[in-house]
Every structure is written in C-alpha cells, then in structure tokens.
C-alpha cells in the first residue's frame, strides 16, 4: 500500500471525527503554540535590546574609573577618582591611537534644578563637545555644548526633552530662559531630541560644559567616564587595547592587572544582555516543552482508543491480506497527521499570540523559519514517538480474534 494512499485514508478518518481530532490535539496545539510564542518573544526582546544598546552609539568604547575587580580596598568604580579630563585630552592628542575616532569625557551626578517655582531632581552631566555625537543624542532646538563653552566654563545648559515637561509645562519657550542648578543660574541654549523609551534615556538629563561642572559646581578634577568611538566595528578590539596601554602609561602603571580604570565596549554589554535574555527564553521554552510531552501522552491515549475501537476493521484488513508493516504504517501515519494538524494549528496560535504581544509591547516581531520548522518537526516527532506503541499493538492483533471483537 502506497504511503500517499495511507495518508489520504488517514486524513479521511480524522475528518470524519473532526471534533475528536481537534480535542485530542489540544495539548499539542497549546504546547507548540506556547513554545512558538516564547521563542518569538525571546527573539523579539533580544532584538529590541540590541537595537536599544546600539542606539546608545555605535562602535562605542567606555572607559570607567576603578579597576575591573572592584575590591574592598580599591573602592568601587563609583567613588574612584582615577580618571581625569586630562586623560581624555591625552587620548585625543595622541597620534599612536590610529584606531580611535572621537573622544568625549563626562562627569555625571544628580542635582536639584529649578525654574521659577518648579523644581526636580535629575541627572546633571558635565560633558565635552563630542559627547552628543558619541551618544547619538541630537539637538532638536537651539545649539549644543561647544569647545568654547568648555574653554570658558560658561554657565550654559542643554536640557533633555523630559525636563521641559516637568519644569516648563509648555507655557514658555525654554530657549534663553534661566534655570538654577544647585543654586547656580544657567542659561538654556538647547533642547535634545527625545529618544523615546530607550534603555538609558537622556530625556531627563541636563547637560553642561564639563569644566563648569568640575570647577563651578563641585570643585573636583576627575570624570566619571571617557567615551571613545572606534573608527569602525573591526577596530573596536584593537582600539580597546591601544587605549589600555596608553592609559597605563599615563597613569604610570606597569602591570595591566593593577589598572585603575576599566574599558568596556558596547559589544560586551550586548553580549551580557543577550546571554541573560537567552537563558531566560530557554528556561521558559523548556517549561512549555513539558506541555508537549503531556500533549503527546494525550495522543497516545486517543490512538490506543482508536485501535481498540477499530479492532474489527484491523481484523478485516488483515484477513484480506494487510501485512503487519502496513497496519503499523496506517496507524503511525494517522498519529502523525493528527499531531501535525496540532502542530500547524499551534503554530498559527503561537504566531497570533506573539504578534499580539509584540504589538502591544512595541517590540519588533520576528517570525523565524526556525520556529516554523521546529513546530513541524517536533509535532511529527511526537506523532512517531507516541503513535508507535498503539500502531504496534494494532499490527500484532491476530486476524480471527480481531474479527470476533464486538
């Protein structure tokens, strides 16, 4: 008997018992559905995290004060004062750093800012000229912080989009207005463009010249980070190396293990986050996969019932010359058609659910070939595994005994 004919017949049998078919594959539908939606969600969130991180600036390398092993004595990176503005200037000046494009330094702290009677507590970041372009921050109105502002430590400020909502409530044009930061009066010269819901949002920050923050507001001479961009993606690693050696030299440190700074790239961050979301997705998918096993047992159950119900039919078929192999094939194909039906319905359910969730969460929706082939492959496999025993049992029936079955 040809496989195609067996297939035709199986589909016919399952069609005549439509309700039962759907109910018996419910476990598979739900199982495949949840696995597909979880995989899709995992991929979507990973992609979105990637996009957000990349939006912070591409090819970006961050140098932070304090060593990588933030031990007891060394002090955490937060209060390490080992990075100076001078380091940034040296990096900029050095002609050994062939791989580096732009450099910026920043000093960030929190402070009270106020306009008239409104006030808020927010991030105040002292920056150098390249900071905005390195962090992919655009100026929507007015101008940014220039080298001149830094040279003169002028009291000018560029404010984030979110700050306007808090302080100005849309009544006055903020450009040219004065606001107070820790009691010092600053003139607003620009407003940044909103970055939306991004992970490290600049919307609620205000930016002032680095030198102003250091000398006028806080009286310090260190910075909290130096940002460097590599000339292109391939040069990120060489650039990190070159930066490392230059800074060791500048700080007079011989052993790289004693470094009083740490260098990380956007790539490192990306990898860490991907790893975390990946583990999470795998875990959830694993749990969903358990429901597939339960679904498979449901299939086995219904197939055993089918075999018992159709004992007489099996007897007739064997009496007319069906071989054991043929009977096994017939019931195995039926079971596979059953689970495959479940798999396809589950796939549709999964795609539907993940589309809804990604839409409402504003994630990019990626429906991958992987998940489709996974659904098809896994459901076939379940059909084979859990259909085998009932099929085997059917094939073992003795013709005359099967015929006597009422």
């Amino acid at each position, binding site marked *: 008997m040809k496989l195609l004919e067996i297939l035709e017949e199986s589909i016919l049998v399952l069609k005549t018992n439509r309700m039962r078919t759907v109910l018996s594959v419910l476990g598979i539908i739900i199982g495949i559905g949840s696995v597909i939606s979880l995989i899709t969600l995992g991929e979507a969130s990973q992609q979105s995290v990637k996009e957000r991180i990349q939006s912070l600036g591409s090819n970006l390398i961050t140098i932070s004060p304090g060593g990588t092993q933030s031990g007891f004595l060394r002090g955490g990176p937060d209060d390490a004062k080992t990075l100076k503005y001078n380091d940034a200037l040296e990096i900029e000046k050095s002609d050994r750093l062939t791989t580096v494009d732009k450099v910026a330094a920043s000093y960030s702290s929190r402070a009270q800012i106020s306009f008239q009677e409104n006030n808020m507590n927010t991030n105040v970041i002292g920056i150098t000229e390249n900071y905005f372009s390195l962090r992919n921050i655009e100026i929507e109105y007015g101008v940014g912080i220039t080298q001149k502002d830094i040279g003169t430590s002028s009291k000018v400020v560029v404010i984030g989009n979110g700050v306007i909502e808090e302080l100005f409530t849309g009544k006055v044009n903020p450009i040219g207005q004065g606001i107070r930061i820790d009691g010092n009066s600053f003139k607003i010269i620009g407003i940044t463009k909103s970055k939306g819901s991004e992970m490290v949002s600049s919307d609620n920050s205000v930016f002032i010249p680095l030198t102003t923050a250091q000398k006028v507001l806080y009286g310090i001479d260190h910075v909290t980070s130096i940002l460097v961009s590599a000339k292109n993606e391939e040069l990120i690693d060489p650039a990190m190396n070159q930066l490392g050696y230059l800074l060791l030299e500048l700080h007079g440190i011989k052993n790289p293990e004693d470094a009083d700074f740490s260098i990380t790239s956007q790539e490192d961050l990306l990898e860490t986050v991907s790893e975390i979301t990946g583990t999470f997705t795998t875990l959830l998918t694993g749990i969903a996969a358990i429901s597939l096993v339960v679904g498979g047992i449901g299939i086995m159950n219904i197939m055993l019932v089918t075999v018992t119900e159709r004992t*007489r039919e099996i007897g007739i078929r064997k*009496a007319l010359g069906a071989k054991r192999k043929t009977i096994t094939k017939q019931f195995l194909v039926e079971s596979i058609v059953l689970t495959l039906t479940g798999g396809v319905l589950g796939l549709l359910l999964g795609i539907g659910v993940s589309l809804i969730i990604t839409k409402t969460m504003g994630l990019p929706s990626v429906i991958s070939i992987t998940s489709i082939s996974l659904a098809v492959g896994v459901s076939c496999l379940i059909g084979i595994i859990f259909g085998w025993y009932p099929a085997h049992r059917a094939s073992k029936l003795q013709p*005359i005994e099967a015929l006597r079955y009422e």
Partner: protein
Amino acid sequence: MIPLIDVKGITKIYNGGEIATKALSDVSFEIEKGEFVAIVGPSGSGKSTLMHILGCLDIPTSGTYIINGRNVENMNDDELANIRNKEIGFVFQAYNLLSRTTSIKNVCLPMIYAGIPKTERYERAKKLLISVGLGNKLFNSPNQLSGGEKQRVAIARSMATEPSIILADEPTGNLASKQSMEIMDIFDELNIKGNTIILITHEENIAKRAKRIISIMDGKIVNDTGRLN
C-alpha cells in the same frame, strides 16, 4: 500430484472462559486443485471453524495443514498475509465489510494490499459488483444495504484479487433462491475456469450443485462423497 489442500488430524479446542469447546476433532481430508466442495452440517458442528483454518485466519490446536505443498505452521505473518491476499478469497458468514465505506471501496481493499494500481482497482471492482447484480449500489455503504446485498459485496470482494481458492461461509444464506442460483452460477463459472471452490451451506439444493459434499457433525467428518462426476 500433491493435493492443493491437505488437512491431517486437525483438532481445534476453544478455551473461551471456563469451559473448553472442542470444535473440531481429528479432521483429515484432501482437496485437489479445481474441486467444487460443499461442507454441510448442523449449526455448531464446526464448519466455520474449519473454514477459518483453511483460510489461514486461525491455527489448529493440533494437526497439520498443508496448502499448496507448504505447511502453514512454518509460515510467518507476512507469508500468511500474502496467501490470504493472493491465493484465497474469503466470504465470511458475517460479511465483515468495512462499515462507513462504500461497496466499491470495500471490493477495492484486497487489491490495495495486492498493490494493484488505483484506476485498475476501481475498474475491476465495478465489474465485479455489476456481475453480482449491484451495479446500482456502487457507492452505498454497508449500512445502506440489505443482508443479501452485503453478502453479494462480500462475494465480489472475495474474487477481487482473482484468487485460485474461494472459501465461502454460507454465501447464499441471506439470498432469495433466484439470487442464490445466480451466485452459484458465478461459482460454477469460476470452477470451470479452474478455481477451487469450497463452500459451507445448509441448503440441500445448493450443496447439490457442488461436486463433492463433506458432512460434519460435532466436529467430526461423518461423510465424504469424494469427487462426484
């Protein structure tokens, strides 16, 4: 010449429940190729039991059954299936048609297992059903057929793979005498073509059309006319 069917000392004991029933006891006979045999006997005498053994559907408790020179005992499942499919056409007392399946598909079934292509299958099934007078019931399923009609579908099916042996358990049991005679005409024709026919009947005028009558009572052969001419 070796006989087509060689039964030696066959005993069949059913161990259903607490009581064991001896349906056949020490039955022996030979049937040559091309014979037309009727098996007669009262109800419960073991006729169907014997027929199932001859049809390779059941195995005897003891004794040997040699078909076409081959001992059934030594054949595996697939070989037996092959014999049931190609050598023997079986008409069951209880018809044993697939319910919810049309007459034509029922007749096609053994041909599927014989590997006959689809179009030829349908062609042949149609011809056979017409020959048993069911040309107008090709697409009815068994529950839309009368007892006699079902019996005729079963007969058509038994001839589907053109087997050399036809085993028929009360093939005319539900038929009016005119239809019975038509069916017997078909068997006659097959027999003339060289097929071996073995049928069970309790009707005298049916048995008379056979060329040999074996009478059974209480699981034993009580009379065998031998080949009549």
